[in-house]
């Protein structure tokens, strides 16, 4: 295969995705389009060069799956941060803080605390016992074919949920940042990611993740420096400005509704730094927290990173670096979010994107001099390109994890019974990557316009309820065996998905109709009253205002009618329910204990003498590293 030719074609295909007929959104003015092209092209060129170099180094399947075990602890720490900090954390959390203050910041804490679980109980044993996949760890003590099959299915399930959320989120993001069509955005993300994974395997994926993490941290540091500089780098002084900001005070007044009447502007501003503007159900919060804190330690694409370092010590170093980078980044988001709220304003942020995702890019544009300036648009382009690189790097990690489960666990482990040559395995891994990539692009395009935000939480819930219990108990409980592993994976996965299907996350037509009917009922008399006012008013300015208000009310009414019409005669959700069975959006609180219970119960019922005999070997190896599977081939 002529690699350089393929790279040229991939690059061209990507640039064609940015075809000139694409309608640019309001964020970047057409005369600054060249800046966006330039920055995107530069970042893509760097990652493509890295992939080209990496492709030459991928000679064995160990190189493809685990970068030959030749990644250092520090490099791996940056790569974990690059694998983990998705666009949801970069754009999403900064956005939540800019719109809801304290609650947005509180939400970010769980994403860091998750790594304590990884550091203390998972990373080092995984490095000592595993080779390329989670299936390898489970196969050590259990029936290899059975557990590899079930674990691979679970890996693919978790990664697919996460992948869909990333692809749809990425498509929407690229569309609103640089204005190309949604389908082109998804295809561009998909093709670029496939180029990294298929040619460069884990070597290229690692370096793309490192580059992305460095760019992300650098961009955030620069923005926070400029924001904080304006306010003299003080702590209390900075927050005094936050609570004194009229835009923030107006935002809080809108959020708290009637209660605002009895509050001074200063109190309204202070309220921005207090809990419960966004998160109103603490039980749901705790449920989500459990899924994050335990689920990260069951995420295949994260655990896979520990097979790329040579020793348990370097696995430890990598988690500590990852915690420093990820934690530092989340502390920066507090300033990005509050800075965007003060400088750009919550209303302008919502106008660009209802979920607040444009807070960081708009802040960059403002800091550089605003929408009309070259520097402002250059900074916006840079942040947009970083967000794009973020999505591609996360997606590459997810595709590699799914493809490894398919090729290493199912094809080589189960179908070929571990009898495949290294060349066959590498080819299988590349074909599987292409399959997963094609699937990701297809689902990404089909899922356009769907609300996929809860899929990330679902991925963490499945990882915490299925993957985490079986990996943890395989490593720490002597009695754990094949029966328990299979039951835990199946029950954990099904209960997490099942609970979401009967949760308030789904659409309940009757409830939607009642809510929309209220809007229609309220708008009909309002329009009538406005029309009466219209006929009695003569002043031009007031007339204009009334006309505008009538148009807005009619638009809202039309929207509500459309929403009802779209539902047609449906009265139940996709699983046939008129209303949710449980009041939890996050299933972890119930499904995680269920997953653990299933492993305990079925391990005790099934009993496997062999699994108990091998326990001594597993436990000694996991604690000492004796006989560690050497992924190192150089």
């Amino acid at each position: 295969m002529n690699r350089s030719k393929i790279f040229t074609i991939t690059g061209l295909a990507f640039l064609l995705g940015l075809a000139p007929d694409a309608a640019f959104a309001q964020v970047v003015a057409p005369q600054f389009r060249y800046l966006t092209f330039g920055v995107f092209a530069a970042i893509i060129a760097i990652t493509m060069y890295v992939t080209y170099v990496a492709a030459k180094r991928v000679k064995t399947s160990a190189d493809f799956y685990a970068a030959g075990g030749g990644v250092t602890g520090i490099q791996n720490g940056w790569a974990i941060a690059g694998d983990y900090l998705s666009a949801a954390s970069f754009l999403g959390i900064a956005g939540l803080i800019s719109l809801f203050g304290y609650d947005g910041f509180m939400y970010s804490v769980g994403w860091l605390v998750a790594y304590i679980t990884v550091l203390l109980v998972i990373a080092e044993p995984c490095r000592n016992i595993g080779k390329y996949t989670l299936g390898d760890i489970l196969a050590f003590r259990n029936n290899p074919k059975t557990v590899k099959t079930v674990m691979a299915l679970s890996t693919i399930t978790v990664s697919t949920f996460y992948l869909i959320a990333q692809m749809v989120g990425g498509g929407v993001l690229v569309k609103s940042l640089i204005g190309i069509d949604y389908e082109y955005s998804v295809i561009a993300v998909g093709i670029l990611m496939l180029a990294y994974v298929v040619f460069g395997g884990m070597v290229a994926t690692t370096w793309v993740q490192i580059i992305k993490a460095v760019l992300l941290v650098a961009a955030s540091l620069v923005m926070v420096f400029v924001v904080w500089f304006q306010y003299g780098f003080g702590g209390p002084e900075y927050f005094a400005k936050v609570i004194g900001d009229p835009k923030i005070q107006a935002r809080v007044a809108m959020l708290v509704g009637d209660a605002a009447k009895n509050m001074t502007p200063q109190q309204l501003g202070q309220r921005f730094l207090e809990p419960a503007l966004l998160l109103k159900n603490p039980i749901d919060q705790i449920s989500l927290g459990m899924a994050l804190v335990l689920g990260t330690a069951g995420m295949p694409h994260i655990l896979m990173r520990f097979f790329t370092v040579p020793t348990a010590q370097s696995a430890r170093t990598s988690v500590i670096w990852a915690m420093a980078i990820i934690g530092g980044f989340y502390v920066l988001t507090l300033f990005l979010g509050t800075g965007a709220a003060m400088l750009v304003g919550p209303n302008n942020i919502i106008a660009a994107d209802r979920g607040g995702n444009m807070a960081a890019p708009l802040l960059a544009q403002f800091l550089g001099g605003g929408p009309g300036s070259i520097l402002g648009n250059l900074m916006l382009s840079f942040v947009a390109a970083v967000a794009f690189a973020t999505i591609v790097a996360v997606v590459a990690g997810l595709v590699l994890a799914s493809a490894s489960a398919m090729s290493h666990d199912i094809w080589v482990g189960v179908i070929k019974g571990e009898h495949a040559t290294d060349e066959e395995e590498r080819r299988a891994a590349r074909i599987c990557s292409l399959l997963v990539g094609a699937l990701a692009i297809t689902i990404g395009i089909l899922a356009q316009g769907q609300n996929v935000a809860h899929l990330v939480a679902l991925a963490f819930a499945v990882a915490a309820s299925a993957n985490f219990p079986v990996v943890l108990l395989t490593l720490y409980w002597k009695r754990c065996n094949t029966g328990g592993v299979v039951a835990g994976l199946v029950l954990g996965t099904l209960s997490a998905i099942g609970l979401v299907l009967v949760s308030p996350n789904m659409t309940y037509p009757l409830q939607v109709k009642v809510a929309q009917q209220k809007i229609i009922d309220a708008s009909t008399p309002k329009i009538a009253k406005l029309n009466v006012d219209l006929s009695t008013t003569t002043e031009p300015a007031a007339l204009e205002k009334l006309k505008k208000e009538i148009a807005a009310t009619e638009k809202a009414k039309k929207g509500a009618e459309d929403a009802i019409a779209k539902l047609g005669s449906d009265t139940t959700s996709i699983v046939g329910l008129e209303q949710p069975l449980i009041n939890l959006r996050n299933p972890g609180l119930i499904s995680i204990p269920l997953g653990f219970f299933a492993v305990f119960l079925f391990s005790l019922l099934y009993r496997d003498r062999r699994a108990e005999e091998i326990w001594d070997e597993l436990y000694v190896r996991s604690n000492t590293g004796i006989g560690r599977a050497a992924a190192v081939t150089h």
Partner: protein
Amino acid sequence: MATQSFSWSKIESDPRFQALHRKKTVFLWSLMAFSVIYYFALPVGAAYFTELFTVKLWGAINFGLLFALSEFLVAWGIAYVYAKKASEFDAMADVIVKDARNIGT
């Protein structure tokens, strides 16, 4: 998968390994329990101890904001404490690894 070159059960029952196992188990799980309790104190506190969370301590900076920031410091602190302690475990494991072939053969 099993390698036959070591006598795993004899290494496992070696007093040095048992000492490592005990020390590690107590240390890791108590640190883990502490970190989980400290983390969940944040959402629980924000929901049920709102009065405390809104107490202003340093200008506009209130208890809740400082507590959320302390979550980061505590997480980093745990990582630091673990890294220090883990080098002790490494040294204990090293002795066993060097002696592995002699144990029980």
